């Protein structure tokens, strides 16, 4: 089938909308409420086109392609109506720019400039509602909201339903569900689907900028597995370009004193968690199935919605907390640095990691293992602000205490934690090294993946799920038959951390799949592919942890959980 856009012929599929055809062919039509993974809302009314010969104005997101359909995207009538809707939609919006971190790659600003919308023609009705903080993770500003409904739909899709649009008429704005049994899990999927940054991460950028200037501090940077294959998108690169080495250089340029890696922390987590799995599976020490707990969104979900499964959560801390803790104890001791002088900054694809960093129960010797967390987006902005053109940098290496394995690198993808744990669990269970390290069954963009893995005589029944919705289904299944699974990995976000709430905008399932591909490529190219073989991790356990009293060991390696109340 073919349609004509601005007199040029384009091939299209049945059922496709004109906007989809336009996007696929790089024809610019402004749109705020369309996202390819979410339902069509058609409420922003800016993606207008004019049909020919009838000269009817239609929204291209709802206009279905039909053989021979002719549309124009830029007639005087379209421009006039589109501009008026932009004026109405974005009235006052520019005044909010200083709140917004997105200035460097903001589509709204592009449209404002292109259509000469000054945001002064109209004044919006003040809803009189204040910024609402979702824990220490994200926040929304009703005054900036354009009621596009994307965050609400995404929150539903995750399986939470915390966010909703409230009120009607001009007061229509983002709000939250008052039901005491519904709470935000801080995954931040709302922030990565907001077209105007009305929902956004709670910024740590200013804190980090300030601390980088402080000569009395040793500032450590550690980036999560998922940053390196996605941050390029904020610099105009296609999704899935690995910028690991460039990022190390960039972090040095920003003035970080030490460049370590959350991947190293992931290797610690894998070792701790795989050992615990073996204890539970082979020696009956603890409940089965065991759930992963490196996703704080998932942990909050479990603690709030399903406190009954708390005994099933692995006691292992998460990667950023493990590495942050290791640097503030073991490394500090080795380097003879007062841990109070160390500031650990994580760069994460995630907003819930901001919340996790502030959990008091994770403190070691009275110190937070991680002091600040920047999202991928915040990091990209910081780099641009410092005129660091990331893709053009010469790659460099991580500092030696940040050395990591391929198992740590794949933590970013759904199934990665599982695969890493299996690689090490095999060794811990059998004393023998696995030859074929890849577990393809746990990879890929399916919300629920299951497999049976034979490790010598034992068959491990495993499941890998993402989003709370799928987690709920698995928990339901597990309650009906506790023996269905032995080990379950859960991530709050689609595709795992790589599709996290702190990632570049736009994030779509197609883009996530590309980023994932790049993560597995990093692993496949590495010689070191098992966490327990990481020499730094080995040294950490053998020359430090082993010699600590049991209580101290636990303080560094393990954590506890508790039933959570709304907003807790």
């Amino acid at each position, binding site marked *: 089938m073919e349609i004509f856009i601005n007199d040029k012929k384009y091939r299209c599929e049945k059922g496709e909308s004109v906007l989809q055809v336009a996007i696929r062919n790089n024809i610019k039509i402004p749109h705020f409420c369309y996202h390819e993974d979410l339902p069509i809302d058609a409420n922003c*009314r800016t993606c207008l086109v004019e049909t020919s010969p009838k000269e009817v104005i239609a929204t291209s997101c709802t206009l279905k392609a039909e053989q021979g359909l002719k549309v124009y995207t830029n007639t005087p009538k379209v421009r006039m109506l589109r501009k008026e809707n932009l004026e109405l939609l974005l009235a006052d919006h520019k005044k909010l720019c200083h709140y917004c971190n997105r200035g460097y790659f903001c589509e709204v600003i592009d449209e404002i400039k292109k259509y000469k919308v000054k945001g002064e023609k109209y004044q919006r009705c003040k809803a009189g509602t204040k910024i609402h903080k979702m824990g220490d993770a994200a926040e929304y500003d009703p005054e900036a909201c*354009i*009621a596009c409904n994307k965050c609400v739909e995404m929150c539903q899709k995750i399986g939470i339903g915390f966010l*909703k649009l409230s009120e009607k008429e001009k*007061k229509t704005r983002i709000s939250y569900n008052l039901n005491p049994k519904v709470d935000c899990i801080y995954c931040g999927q709302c922030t990565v689907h907001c077209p105007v940054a009305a929902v956004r991460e709670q910024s740590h950028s200013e804190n980090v900028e300030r601390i980088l200037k402080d000569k009395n501090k040793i500032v450590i940077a550690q980036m999560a597995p998922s940053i390196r294959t996605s941050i390029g998108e904020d610099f105009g690169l296609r999704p899935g370009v690995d910028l690991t080495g460039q990022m190390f250089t960039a972090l040095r340029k920003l003035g970080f004193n030490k460049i370590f890696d959350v991947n190293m922390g992931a290797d610690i987590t894998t070792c701790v968690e795989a050992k615990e799995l073996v204890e539970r599976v082979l020696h009956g020490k603890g409940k089965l199935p065991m759930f992963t707990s490196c996703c704080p969104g998932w942990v909050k979900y479990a603690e709030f919605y399903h406190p009954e499964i708390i005994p099933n959560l692995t006691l292992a801390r998460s990667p950023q907390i493990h590495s942050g803790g290791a640097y503030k104890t073991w490394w500090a001791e080795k380097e003879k640095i007062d841990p109070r002088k160390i500031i650990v900054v994580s760069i994460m694809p995630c907003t819930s990691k901001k919340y996790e960093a502030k959990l008091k129960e994770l403190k070691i010797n009275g110190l937070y293992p991680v002091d600040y967390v920047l999202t991928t987006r915040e990091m990209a902005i910081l780099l641009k602000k410092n005129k660091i053109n990331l893709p053009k940098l010469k790659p460099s290496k991580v500092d030696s205490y940040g050395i990591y394995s391929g198992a740590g690198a794949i933590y970013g993808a759904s199934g990665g934690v599982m695969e890493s744990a299996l690689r090490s669990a095999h060794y811990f269970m059998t004393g023998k090294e696995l030859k074929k390290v890849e577990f393809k069954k746990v990879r890929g963009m399916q919300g629920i993946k299951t497999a049976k893995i034979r490790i010598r005589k034992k068959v491990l029944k495993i499941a890998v799920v993402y989003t709370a919705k799928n987690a709920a289904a698995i928990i339901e299944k597990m309650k009906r038959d506790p023996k269905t699974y032995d080990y379950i990995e859960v991530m709050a976000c689609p595709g795992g951390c790589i599709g996290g709430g702190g990632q570049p905008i736009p994030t779509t399932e197609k883009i996530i799949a590309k980023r994932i591909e790049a993560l597995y490529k990093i692993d496949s190219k590495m010689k070191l592919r098992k966490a327990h073989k990481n020499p730094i991790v080995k040294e950490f356990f053998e020359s430090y942890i082993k010699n600590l009293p049991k209580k101290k060991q636990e303080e560094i390696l393990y954590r506890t959980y508790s039933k959570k109340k709304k907003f807790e």
Partner: protein
Amino acid sequence: MAKPLINKIEKAGLIGRGGAGFPTAVKWKSVKNAHEKPKYVICNASEGEMGVFKDFHILKNHPEKIIKGMALAMDYLKTKEAYININAKYYKKLKKRLEKIFNTYRKGGYDFTIFQEHPSYIGGEETALLNAIEGKRIEPRLKPPFPSIAGLFGKPTLINNVETFYNVACVADNTYKQCRFYCISGKAKKPSTYYLPNNLTIEKILKITKNYPKFDFFVQIGGSASGTVLNKKQIKKNKMIGAGAIEIFSKKLKPREFLLRLFEFYKNESCGKCAPCREGTYQLFKIVKRNKTIQWGKIMEIIDTMEQTAFCGLGRSIDTPVKSYMKNILKIKI
């Protein structure tokens, strides 16, 4: 053998009395032809448009007829499931009488659910009404699918206005006389609901009901928000359209007041879904409120945008009253 009801409805030329005027038989058939089950019948007694109060009148005076009309629709569609979406204020007043009739039918296996609606203009939009009943945010849905194919809970649904069901019962009883209900309000001597032939001119209706004013006047017909504004001359020819309202205004009414009343209604009733209606109606009200003289240019920018780009018919309808008022009463060229 008696003629099937659907043929009689077709022959009587019944059209929907909720305002849109869609042929009733066509609507019924399309629900009949839909495959999914169960099917639902909904009687809409929302009556959120200004100047319309006939639904209350019919509910009060002819509830048996309405419910009979609904039951006939249920028989035709082979369903036992019906909802009545009723203005909560109306229900409070009429509860006893209505429940008595519903209960009689319930004994015969007909299932009626009462949905009390907080009166709203958007309730007149069928899909918004469906969302309300389903407990969702009250805003129109994207069409297609139309309610006749995927309506309430995604099932084929017939939605008719109170008066339409009344007419259906009359057609079945062979008492339908091509009449309709007229709501006369505003500067009228005898504001009330009248039941008169549906082919009379507006002037004739005003005269028959002794409501023809002695002062210089104009009217708005169909509904006092979305309806067309006509002058004295025009009502000699024009007949009723829409939901049956005639509101009489004194020619002395200041344009600013006329617009304020209109825009305030739209501003308060916008469901908030789409940008032009949500933000536009508010700006329209502000523009008129803030300025002593009417800023026609600014107003028309928004009116044109709403007319061409609002999501649903309710938002798009705003140009009808404004443009007809400008053209027919103020003689402003557009």
